[in-house]
């Protein structure tokens, strides 16, 4: 800590002194040019890391999720619109994007240590990774879906009656968001046992079955006591 403070003081002494050899023009112009180059480079790096080509540059993405994406309508469809990885997985807003990019530094860690370096490791971790994405999309009200799909532009008469009814009931009212029902539309699903579909009623509205629980408890307590008494 002392070392850090001494280093900082050394830097501050140099930085706070007026320049003796460099003119103000060079400093101002150099600072301006340096700023332009830095900002341009930063933005270019941001753009480059936001492409499908960059994402599929690693075998983890190319051999797993990218192969699965290619079989879905988000990759090939009748109207020829394609969603690339960042369209769904990176927010388009600048601040949100930077926040997501900072989070993504964890993925660099995963790459270095081979967290999902084989198909088996990936499948084992898939539920956890999927849950992260579901939570993210749930929290921002499926923002990345809505960058292309908006409820206001949906023509329910062009939808199948069942889809139209469900959209009218859940989407338009804002009761649910896209990801609640449309999980696994662009990739294969993880083990879905125990994960409720979006149209099931919330747990607090379903506790009319709760009167069973004391019975079950009593039964299990009884069974436990019977087991204990048996020789």
């Amino acid at each position, binding site marked *: 800590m002392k070392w850090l403070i001494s280093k900082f003081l050394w830097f501050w002494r140099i930085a706070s002194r007026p320049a003796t050899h460099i003119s103000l023009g060079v400093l101002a112009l150099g600072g301006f040019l340096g700023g332009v180059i830095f900002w341009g480079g930063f933005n270019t790096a941001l753009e480059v890391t936001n492409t499908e080509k960059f994402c599929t540059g690693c075998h983890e993405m190319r051999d797993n999720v990218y192969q699965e994406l290619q079989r879905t309508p988000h990759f090939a469809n009748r109207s020829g619109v394609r969603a690339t990885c960042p369209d769904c997985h990176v927010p388009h807003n600048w601040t949100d994007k930077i926040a997501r990019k900072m989070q993504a530094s964890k993925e660099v860690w995963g790459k270095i240590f081979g967290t999902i370096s084989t198909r088996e490791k990936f499948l084992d971790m898939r539920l956890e990774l999927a849950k992260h994405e579901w939570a993210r999309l749930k929290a921002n009200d499926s923002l990345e879906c809505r960058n292309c799909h908006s409820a206001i532009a949906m023509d329910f008469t062009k939808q*199948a009656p069942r889809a139209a009814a469900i959209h009218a009931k859940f989407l338009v009212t804002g009761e649910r968001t896209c990801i609640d029902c449309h999980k696994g539309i662009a990739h294969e699903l993880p083990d*879905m046992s125990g994960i*409720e579909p979006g149209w099931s*009623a919330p747990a607090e509205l379903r506790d009319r079955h709760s009167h069973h629980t004391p019975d079950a408890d009593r039964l299990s307590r009884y069974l436990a006591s019977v087991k204990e008494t048996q020789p």
Partner: protein
Amino acid sequence: MRGQDRFRLSAMKTVIAAIIAGAMVLVSGAIYAQSVQTTPRIVPRVTGAAQPMGDVPAPPFPRPVTDDKRVMRNYPEQPPVIPHSIENYQLTLRANRCLECHRREYTEGSGAPMISITHFMDRDGQMLADVTPRRYFCTACHVPQTDARPLVPNTFTDMKASGR
């Protein structure tokens, strides 16, 4: 000399036999080739395309029937057909998109018909709490419908009509 005559005669016989045999091979070969080329193939090959390695023109995909109307069963044991599209439904060991609506617990939210009670019974007749593994893969029996025309005419008659 007699010995020489006999030898010459047998040589002649051999030559004539060889010529006849050669002519027969030629003629039968020509007939065979002719028959292969000209006889039209009436029955299509069971294995599919005549040139499996070549490019085979594929017919366009028929449109799925998605009217959500329950279809009458043609006989009581018929697995009900699916009156909606199941395109891109994931039906794997890990996820079953069909059961997300048709499982008993979810029918209240989805309004879909519950899987039949036979689907809870394992092969020993034991009733389980959820779908039995042997009934897990829905599309083994239940199929969606399309507007494709049947490949061969169907002469099926309802047993009500044919039974009496």
